[in-house]
């Protein structure tokens, strides 16, 4: 089946090693991962398994030590607006208002002023921040900041969304709303998404494929295709079965990673 689909991101034999000698840490080891165009992929794994490192490599923030990673068939040239990144903790610029934050990508890419204005209005509305256009980020709640952050990334329309535990810092209630919101946005204008998350429920709820990563050095342990109609139901027996399967896989790795931590 995977022969017929268009692969957008292809990572092969990917390794990332930090430091050397006694400080040497193998973050990723021989990782292989394929993400199809407009596919929603989630990556789950124990803390410190290199999930974020992988996302950094796709974003072009860092470069791999070995192996290759291709975006639309080409090596990743560095950070670029074809990939939008949402960080776990707000990276809104404190010196720009909500609206000016959302305009940043459009401005930097030389978008026409009036058009940029219209687009920013659309996304401010989409994430429910009307009335807060001129507020500075420090006056917003954690949930509002994260919504502004997502609007900022969507505004310049990247092909690929890289979400690094985007809801990790939110309370359970806001988190649930944001998950539903993300599902809705993704259904509306389909993009390729890679979501790194600690929440198995979040992964099963949102993703077409869930990749379970091993404890460090991180590599892919299992690729589970979530074959459930959308929007999905947390209570559905099928849903719970996927959740159980992934948790089982994950638990083994978490135990392993705690053994590593203990030495």
């Amino acid at each position, binding site marked *: 089946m995977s022969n017929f689909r268009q692969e957008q991101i292809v990572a092969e034999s990917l390794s990332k090693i930090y430091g050397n000698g006694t400080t040497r840490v193998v973050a990723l080891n021989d990782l292989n991962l394929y993400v199809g165009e407009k596919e929603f992929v989630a990556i789950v794994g124990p803390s410190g398994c290199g999930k974020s490192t992988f996302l950094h490599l796709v974003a072009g923030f860092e470069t791999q030590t070995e192996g290759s990673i291709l975006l639309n068939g080409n090596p990743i040239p560095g950070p670029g607006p074809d990939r*939008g*990144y949402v960080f776990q903790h707000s990276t809104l610029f404190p010196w720009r208002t909500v609206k000016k934050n959302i305009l940043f990508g459009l401005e*930097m890419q030389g978008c026409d002023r009036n058009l940029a204005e219209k687009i920013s209005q659309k996304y401010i509305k989409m994430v429910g921040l009307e009335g807060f256009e001129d507020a*500075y980020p420090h006056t917003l709640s954690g949930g509002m900041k994260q919504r502004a952050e997502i609007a900022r990334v969507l505004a310049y329309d990247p092909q690929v969304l890289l979400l690094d535990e985007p809801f990790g810092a939110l309370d359970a209630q806001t988190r649930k709303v944001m998950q539903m919101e993300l599902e809705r946005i993704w259904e509306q204008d389909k993009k390729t998404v890679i979501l790194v998350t600690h929440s198995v429920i979040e992964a099963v709820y949102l993703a077409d494929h869930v990749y379970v990563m091993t404890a460090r050095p991180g590599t892919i342990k299992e690729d589970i295709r979530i074959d459930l109609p959308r929007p999905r139901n947390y209570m559905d027996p099928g849903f719970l079965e996927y959740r159980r399967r992934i948790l089982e896989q994950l638990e083994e790795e978490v135990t392993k990673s705690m053994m590593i931590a203990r030495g």
Partner: protein
Amino acid sequence: MPVDSEIFKGPAGFIIPIVILVFIWELVVDIGLISSSLLPAPSTLLIRATQLSYPEPILIHHILESLYRFAVGYILAVIAGIGIGVLMGMSRIWYKMLNPFVSLFISLPTIAWVPLLLVIVGLGDATIIIAIFLGAFFPMVYNTTTGIQGVPQQLIWASRSMGAGRGATFLHVVIPGSMVSILTGMKLGVGNAWRALVGAEMLAATMWGLGFMIYAARAFYDIRAMFIGLVLIGLLSYLVDMALIQTIENKTIRKWGMVRE
């Protein structure tokens, strides 16, 4: 007594303690607890200040001369300090090359330069302005450097991934991101520059300047003029801080919530 009571809010919080001190000072001298030849009463300082202002505006001339030297030396130090600080903050090699010098010179009292400057440059404005420059320059460099180095990597990544090049990221992210630290450098620079100014004026000025005035008054046992000089130096340094640093702070880092109130 709760110190944060309403009466201490705003400018009153600054002025009230001073008024109280001046009142006690006047009282202590007037009832003869301390000899007025050693500690002149505030009221007699006012009289002396009037004598120094009329008919000849001597005092204002001293003030303007000092302010002029301060402005030239300080502004040059801010510009050069930010420039070198940016270089050191952005480039590892420049940091390695220049950091030893900053570390050595930052704790050197600026006044220690003055005898050397007197030999090289001679008496007059140039020596004083260079001393002011040196006083403000090193804290400016140091704080700009650490400010730039402290901008969170994720903010830079976010900017780059939104299509901003290195130049645009520097302008729109690195500079505002290091404003807290740059302003700290400017604030420390104001204090250092005033200290340098007063010292250098004592040693290198020929006619004018508050430092010169204090030093010259010593020869005539004019203790009141010396006190007036001290008060004015403190006041001017405070006013410069208010007018310059706090104004910029309010329009930037306070508005942006980058410092806690």
